[in-house]
């Protein structure tokens, strides 16, 4: 229901016609008065990593830059657009930090229109201690100042200050990578199989046991040619033996779901009483992020649906 709006908003056709282009985010952080870059992986969901392994968003904060260009901004106004001709249409970023239940907005540091189009530049820092867990950045058009007069044919357009008239791009940053990344170790040995999983004794996967190497670990054995190796190139977007990795991860998730008691599985699916980053909480996020519904009726159907979803997820990340 939240997305039903009774006025025109940005469509992909309008975005294309107006020559709307967004540049990739640049993420940095400051440490001891120096600025360092962060590496990013993924598109709609970005995982940030620090080659120096210093950065944590909680303690170092996060700075980003983003540039948006519109070659023909006038095409977004008037009866075929999203704002009245006399209105002031602007761009802002709405941020949401779900873990801390906080939201806010970011205005561009510069917004210049020349005869080659409009360039909107964002530069913003989240100070240490203000963000944790996740961050959603939604770039939107909004009516900065409504039109004094509504012209012929513009009656259907919204003409109120502060109203969003369409999303340009939505990006989710996932900072909990130590928990979201599946705990994997490589172990080369001719005496061991291609892969195996080790679980610790779980006390309470809903609250006590974290989704980390302390609770579980998937071992891959590169002794075998068919062994998958995640992130095997510099940019981390190529996976050797991709199909095998899909299969192994699907079976590992199946084992984890089967390890849960009926009550814990229900709590995981329905998100009841789950501590942040606990095994069940991460499994819940996994379930929520699935493209197709998981089939719980039988182990074989669950395995099949896990395989499909994990393949899609890994493809998206690449």
């Amino acid at each position, binding site marked *: 229901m939240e997305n039903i709006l009774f006025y025109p908003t940005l469509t992909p056709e309008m975005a294309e016609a107006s020559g709307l282009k967004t540049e990739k985010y640049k993420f940095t952080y400051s440490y001891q008065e120096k600025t360092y870059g962060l590496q990013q992986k993924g598109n709609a969901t970005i995982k940030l990593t620090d080659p120096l392994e210093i950065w944590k968003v909680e303690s170092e904060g996060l700075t980003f830059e983003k540039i948006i260009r519109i070659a023909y901004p006038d095409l977004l106004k008037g009866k075929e657009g999203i704002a009245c001709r006399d209105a002031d249409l602007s761009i*802002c970023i709405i941020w949401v*930090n779900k873990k*801390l239940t906080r*939201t806010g907005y970011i205005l561009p540091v510069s917004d210049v229109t020349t005869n080659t189009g409009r360039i909107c530049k964002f530069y913003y820092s989240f100070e240490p201690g203000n963000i*944790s867990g996740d961050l959603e950045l939604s770039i939107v058009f909004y009516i900065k100042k409504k039109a004094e007069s509504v012209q012929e044919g513009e009656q259907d357009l919204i003409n109120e200050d*502060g109203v*969003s008239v369409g999303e340009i791009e939505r990006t989710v940053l996932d900072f909990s990578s130590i928990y979201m990344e599946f705990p994997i170790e490589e172990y080369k040995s001719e005496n061991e199989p291609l892969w195996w999983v080790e679980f610790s004794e779980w006390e*309470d996967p809903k*609250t006590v046991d974290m989704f980390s190497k302390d609770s579980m670990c998937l071992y891959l054995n590169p002794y075998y040619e068919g062994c998958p190796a995640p992130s095997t190139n510099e940019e981390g977007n190529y996976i050797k033996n991709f199909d095998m990795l899909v299969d192994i991860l699907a079976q590992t998730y199946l084992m984890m779901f089967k390890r849960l008691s009926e009550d814990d599985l229900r709590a995981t699916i329905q998100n009841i009483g789950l501590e942040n980053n606990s095994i069940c909480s991460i499994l819940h996020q996994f379930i929520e992020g699935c493209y197709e519904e998981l089939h719980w009726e039988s182990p074989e159907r669950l395995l099949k649906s896990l395989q499909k979803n994990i393949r899609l997820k890994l493809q998206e990340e690449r």
Partner: protein
Amino acid sequence: MMDFSRFRLSFNDAKNIINSYDEMNDTQFFDQIRHWANYDVPEENYGAEYKPFREAVVDEFQASLADSGNRINYDLDLRVGIRLYELLSPAKDFTVINANDDDIWRYISVNVMPDITFIRYPNLSEDVKILREYIPDLSYSIAIKTEKDSIRMKKKRFYSHTRRIWLKTLWWYIHLGWQGNSEKTYEVLKNNGTNIISHFIERPGRGYREQLFRCMLYAYSLLPEQKDSTFRAAAKLNLAKCVSLEPALTEGGEAEYSKELFDEVYDREATKQDAEEDDTE
């Protein structure tokens, strides 16, 4: 500056401690209540760093009770909340990450201040009789409701419900109502009621917009009369508006938006009331 990460209590550890109270027999538990009614919490239960903090908050709790004739009411929540916020303020490096960390609040509620949490939220009305042995005529402006699934202690208020842990909700209420200093904050919030705290904390929408909430509470304080129904209606309208609108980006920003929001609701309620009175005549 205290390192808050050193003093945390997990869900399970908090649950075990509360269970140990639940498992006491009547004699043992009534004795425990008597200790709490005397604000007697063993110092070895919590880190020494928390001692001055505990003393300051308990002092405020006691002063508020003394001023109200031992009545637990909204004013007590407000005064304790402001004192808590002064001691754990973002200006003193208590970050919103800390304030959102339930393990820190569990530690404070269960280990450092179980006495005032219990006095504020006893689970059974008969326990109040024992508290009254030491806090004469202790009364509650809102009747005590026994929490389902809790035995002797209200577990939601101590540790289990992230938006109901009492001291945590007070901190967030003051944070979202903060007007720059304690005096101004007290003035703006003094005519509200306990229900407003839960409205605010339990319905964050997409997330807390701190500046907007501060402006809304200020605008509400300017109305001729502060009624829960007005606040509820305005909060609901605000949530609906915020689906497509960013209040800060409207002309006049959050301050003007909040004023118009409350004026709109207040006028509508006043008109409705007039119409009802006309019908009665």
